[in-house]
């Protein structure tokens, strides 16, 4: 399925900054012409309010299993496609990435589509929650809200 390439980062949860280059390298290879990397960066505003801090928490074993399932299913649905998803947990400073999705494919169309599908499934299916703290000191768990609403 992955054409013999070792993929050290397929699905992972990490407390520190996400190594985007490592996630990209994990999927890219000489047979893949197109690599699409999505970074979900923490923003300094939400719904008109100023966000000072974001923190993510997860039900880790289930989140890990569901991330791996998403990767496996996407890779199984298209020839030569490779996917890596890394989600950061804990406090993520403004401007840094909370999630990175790297997809490599022989075909750019498939790479873009798998990237979007991975992101939508991540947001719906993986037990990870986001807590926003605002400049007035209040905080709330964001529920049923897009990572980056369209």
């Amino acid at each position, binding site marked *: 399925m992955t054409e013999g390439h070792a993929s050290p980062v397929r699905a992972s949860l990490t407390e520190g900054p996400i190594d985007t280059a490592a996630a990209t390298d994990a999927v890219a290879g000489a047979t893949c012409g197109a690599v699409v990397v999505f970074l979900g960066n923490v923003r300094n505003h939400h719904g008109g309010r100023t966000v000072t801090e974001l923190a993510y*928490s*997860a*039900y880790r*074993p*289930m989140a890990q*299993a569901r991330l791996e399932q998403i990767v496996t299913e996407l890779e199984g649905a298209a020839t030569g496609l490779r996917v890596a998803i890394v989600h950061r947990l804990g406090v993520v400073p403004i401007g840094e990435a909370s999630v990175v999705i790297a997809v490599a494919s022989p075909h750019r169309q498939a790479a873009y589509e798998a990237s979007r599908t991975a992101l*939508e499934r*991540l*947001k*719906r*299916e*993986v*037990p*990870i*929650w*986001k*807590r926003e703290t605002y400049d007035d000191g209040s905080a709330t*768990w*964001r*529920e*049923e*809200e*897009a*990572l980056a609403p369209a």
Partner: protein
Amino acid sequence: MQIRVLAFATAADVIGKEPVEIDLEAGATVDSLGASLCQQFPALEPIWPRLAVAVDGEVVRGSRTLEADAEVALLPPVSGGSIVRDARP
């Protein structure tokens, strides 16, 4: 039997981040666990209908019978919506 309950996000704000041990009769269901939890933590009651419940990592229905030593997780909606609604069947 002893059931270990983990809570996250808004549910953890109510019952705490640490696992809670609940004593239930044999044959108790997820729904009856919910009733016990809402009695012990009244602030959980308005939240309960929106929670997905996972048993040993699998999202289950309220009618699911619990086994002794099961790990039950209370999962509020995630950013893209409710896990229970959107999980594949």
